């Protein structure tokens, strides 16, 4: 049974149809990719699924429950977290604190506990620090924990954004162009990380322009062009699909 189901999703921005009758399914623990030329509607699709934007129509079903119309934090609480195409760190905070914000939904202490440093508060903070460091270790940023997030080189900022999303223990992770701006070495490390996350049981949907990366890690690829799904299938089928080649060639002209 599919983990995430998107049915007849529709989004219009005054006049233009950014996402048009888009349907696809993601299986539990698979790595799915969404590809397509610039402006195809990929990021908009993520915005709709994660609740950042409200769709004009359609259905989104996650773990057999409709999540259409829910607020982003409610969707996150159900186990879905995303990253952003433009790195969107809290650069006014340390690397470690960025990750800690990602684990916010797992915590319970409120204003009172924090102000009076209750025992439960201290225990929870200690646990948060520990799990956050573990997440940083997973992406290889543990040595950078006390630095300001804005001071990291770009490649590490991308990793931190993934770490921050992971801190919330997501069951499904939506990555919007995680390899953009990375060099070949960093991209290879990213591929390893994504495969590792899959092994840990996380389902992954990735938007990516780096075709080598997409073909290497994805099991199912959804191709969108001008808001419409034009193809779907495994890496081999997509590479030889005429419509897909046409859409990408069309972009180049």
């Amino acid at each position, binding site marked *: 049974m599919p983990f995430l189901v998107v049915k007849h999703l529709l989004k219009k921005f005054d006049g233009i149809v950014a996402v048009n009758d888009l349907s696809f399914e993601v299986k539990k623990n698979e790595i799915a990719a969404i590809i397509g030329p610039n402006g195809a509607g990929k990021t908009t699709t993520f915005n709709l699924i*994660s*609740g*950042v934007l409200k769709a004009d129509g359609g259905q989104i079903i996650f773990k057999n429950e409709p999540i259409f119309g829910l*607020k*982003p*934090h409610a969707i*996150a*609480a159900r186990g879905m*977290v*995303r990253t*952003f195409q433009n790195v*969107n760190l*809290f*650069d*006014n*905070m340390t690397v470690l*604190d960025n990750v*800690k*914000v*990602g684990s*916010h*939904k797992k*915590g319970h*202490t*409120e*204003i009172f*506990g*924090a*102000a*009076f*440093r209750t025992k439960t*508060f201290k225990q*929870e*903070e200690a646990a*948060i620090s520990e799990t956050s460091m573990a997440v940083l270790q997973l992406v290889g940023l543990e040595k950078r924990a006390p630095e300001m997030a804005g001071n990291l080189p770009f490649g590490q900022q991308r990793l931190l954004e993934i770490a*921050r*999303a992971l801190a*919330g223990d997501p069951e499904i992770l939506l990555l919007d162009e995680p390899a953009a701006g990375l060099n070949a070495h960093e991209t290879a490390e990213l591929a390893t990380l994504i495969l590792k996350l899959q092994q840990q049981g996380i389902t992954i949907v990735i938007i990516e322009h780096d075709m080598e990366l997409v073909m290497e890690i994805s099991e199912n690829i959804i191709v969108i062009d001008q808001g419409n799904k034009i193809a779907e299938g495994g890496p081999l089928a997509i590479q030889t699909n005429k419509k897909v080649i046409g859409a990408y060639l069309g972009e180049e002209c």
Partner: protein
Amino acid sequence: MKSQAIRYTILLAVIIILPFFFKNELSYYLAILSIAGIYAIAVIGLNLLMGYAGQISLGHAAFFAAGAYTSAILTTQFSISPLLSLVPAIMVSGVLAFLIGIPTLKLKEHYLAMATLGIGLIIHAILRANPFDITGGPGGIPNIPPLNFLGLVTDSDITQYYFIWALTFIIFILSNNLVNSRFGRALLAIHKSEVVTNVLGVNTYRCKLKIFVLSAVYAGFAGYLYAHSSPLFYVNPDDVCHFVFSIKLVTMVVVGGMHTMWGALLGAVSLAVLPELLRVLGSFSPSLNTADLEMALYGIILILVMIFTQ
């Protein structure tokens, strides 16, 4: 952590020994320093809202006034002890903020600024208009009783000074604790990007509402202390609810740098003594209107800070 304890100790020492520096006109300086402590409480609260969560209130005087007037009315007209009027006073401030926050915090940041600006003007007008004949109109409410906490009466200048600054000190530490927590981190995150914070699983609306109400409660508590403080024991609409007072509180937060509680404390104290410095200046030149000069200075400070922190 250790350096934090040292800093707290230094702060406490400064609070304790400060009165000994004023040999002449001690009660005059103690009154000013007490007011500075009261402002500091309101500014610490406003700093939580503005400096940490990045939400702007341009009418914080309304919450100060709500606390001050609620207690003034209850103690003078209903003969309730100030000990018992504390809870209603801060509750009125908190509920007022809650009612303003529910609709406006759903919208973009500047809606809160606009709504608080409006509520500040409205409350000021209501206090002056005296609709139920309980606010005393433009003349305000005189003869408010001093605080009396379990035998500790704040009628002398020195007990009042230590009482207020003890409270300021405690609130300062609690607030510092608060920002270094799960909740405080969420506030800073909201400041940077509400959408991203929301997507990560933080109910940003609720966080904003909580901190807005809390900052109003701080202001209400400060107003409550103000109403019962010597030598005036007096509130009027222009002193506690004027738009200029709201701007003054904002300026105090901005001067403090909006990043740390220590800055907020410094900002509050330095601007609380500013009018006194200006008064000294004014005594040399009788034609100088120091109130106008004070306003102009706030404006200049705000502009300079905006330019240099870009």
